[in-house]
């Protein structure tokens, strides 16, 4: 079963990008970006997972107990924080774009080209 998280990660990455490429709505597009992002969560957690090991919290288990890799979990949390910032900023920009132009379709903004 070790390949499953990697297959899921690849699937999420590809389907998220497909969503972005075919998107007709900014909110949809930004959520698709979050889908791509979640593929990196799955990948990171999949890398750190070891079958049958404990969670890396040594409050109630003796030190030295085999545990899953805590570093990737810390990386994933950092990743979440970073992504929330970017998503919030993107959504704010999308809201603002809708207020100013009345459009939410990334194909129709068309202010800059050439």
């Amino acid at each position, binding site marked *: 079963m070790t390949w499953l998280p990697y297959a899921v990660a690849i699937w999420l*990455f590809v389907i998220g*990008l497909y969503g*972005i*490429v*075919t*998107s007709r709505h*900014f909110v949809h*597009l*930004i959520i698709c*970006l979050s889908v*791509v*992002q979640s*593929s*990196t969560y799955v*990948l*990171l957690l999949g*890398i750190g997972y070891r079958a049958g090991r404990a969670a890396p919290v040594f409050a109630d288990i003796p030190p030295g107990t085999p545990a899953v890799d805590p*570093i*990737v979990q810390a*990386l994933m949390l*950092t*990743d979440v924080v*970073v992504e929330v*910032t*970017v998503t919030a*900023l*993107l959504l704010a*920009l*999308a809201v*603002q*774009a809708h207020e*100013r*132009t009345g459009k939410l379709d*990334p*194909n129709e*903004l*068309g*202010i*800059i*080209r*050439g």
Partner: protein
Amino acid sequence: MLTPPIPVVLPLLIAALLAAMPRMPRWLAFLLAILTTLTVGCVAIALLNYTREEPLIVYWFGGWTTRYGIAPGIGFAIDTAGAMLVLLGSILTTASLIFSSRYFDTVGTLYHSLMLIFFAAMNGFAMTGDLFNLFVFFELMSAAAYALCGYKSEEPGPLQGALNFAVTNTVGAFLVLTGISLLYSRTGALNLAQIGRSLQDQGADALVVTAFALIVCGFSIKGALVPFHFWLADAHAVAPAPVCVLFSGVMVELGLYAVVRVYWTIFSGPLTPHASEVRVLLATLGALTAITGAVMCYAQRHLKRLLAFSTISHMGILMLGVALLTPQALAGVEIYVVGHAMLKGGLFLAAGILLHRAATLDEIQLARHPRHMYFVAVLMIAGAAGLAGAPPFGTFWGDMMIGGAAHGLRNEWVEWIAFAASAATAGALFRFTARAFFGWGPKVELIGEPGSKISENPDTETGHRHTPPAMYLPAGALILLGLVAGLTPRLTGAALASAIHVQDRAGYAARMLDHLAPYPPAVEDQPLMAGDLLRGGAALLVALALAGFTLRAHRVVRAGKLRPAVRWLRELHSGVIPDYVTWVMVGTATFAAAAVIWLRSY
């Protein structure tokens, strides 16, 4: 030694302070921000000075140093190149803040705050020795940049530019992060030196090569290499001029810096047997970028967009220099980055002054009522001459060393592409200056000329009568620095020494992990040849000829039989995010496939 964290920590603290005090008087906010960047500049000079004795300054946060060659903590590793980038960022941010103090009619402390966060993140990016830390600073830098790009959020143009910028670069960040995850899964390490050391004895298998492709492509989005470059022109066209200075001068170059750093600390080991294939792959990216950027630059009539495509073209030249993989070429790249940053910064500030006075940056509108602003015109001409690589600008020395390395490898075509690209971008700038400031050439018929379509309101209300000294002094100073950079004594030798250290993977690892410090080698200056001077002069003449040739026509640009090709190329730059992301996917898939086929050892 407590100095290394200052360039990151100090601006972040002041940024928080400024964000918490929105009612601070405008002059005080600018004074605080400028003092911060000046302090960091002094720290950068101190660090730079120190790297002459100790080529890699290592600083471990919280005192978590290495044991038995394993790095449990996060460390900064500052070499001459990194310290130079911090200094460069300090100079450009200071100039940009001084300019901003009179440029905007209204500006809140949020602007200063964002500028300082952006600045801090760029410094951290240039100094870190940890792969994940690199990613975090990359994201922090990007987030601040998106917000700065869309700073004039009441207009649709900046919003579209910021959205294009943000979505494409976020996809790039995910590519990088996926690459980092793959490397961690193989090595269990995040420290650059430690990853490099654990990979050096193994060949490159599919996983390492895929990680290489993902990281290079991800950072190439920030570095605006074709076909990952689309966001750059959109972002630059609409971002405020003082922000463009930082985008073009440092941020984009940092994308390339990351490729360089990661290649020579990690991948140069496992990819040693395939150096010539790596060279072909990277040089292809560089050549495509230099040519596309030059053609698109020549075809623009909006000044900031024209300068943006010139940046893309020059990034291509820089990538060609990196792709040669020799210390001499990399030294050329380092000098070129500094020279280009000063000139491009000065040119964007000149564009800001023009917008401030004339309320438009459109070549044709300006040509109808040419502005006789001779100081700005002189800046533009000097900047264009510098972009052409005329001696003695900093770019000339960079060109010379990249060209010399290309000769040594019997890859003279690199030199020719760099020559053509710099002449074309400078020619476009000469043409713009002649029309907009002097009204030269016949009146252009606009029929059938699509032109770059940008609706832009000036950052100020209407045209102003006067330009305050706080605006033209930084612009002039930056162009002058671009000239002075080329007159620095022992320039080529110092750059060569720095490049040798950047490419010394074993030395980097020994300094970072084992605290060993072999004595840095002494390096001679590269002698100046008459042929190099001739080439710099020739590029300038070709640029002038190109401008003259176009000015005689009744069209914005003259493309002759190439017109359909140019039009097709322009239509690719559609301003639509789904198109851009498609290009990112195509580019990454192609690069990764080529890498896996060519670079895999087994």
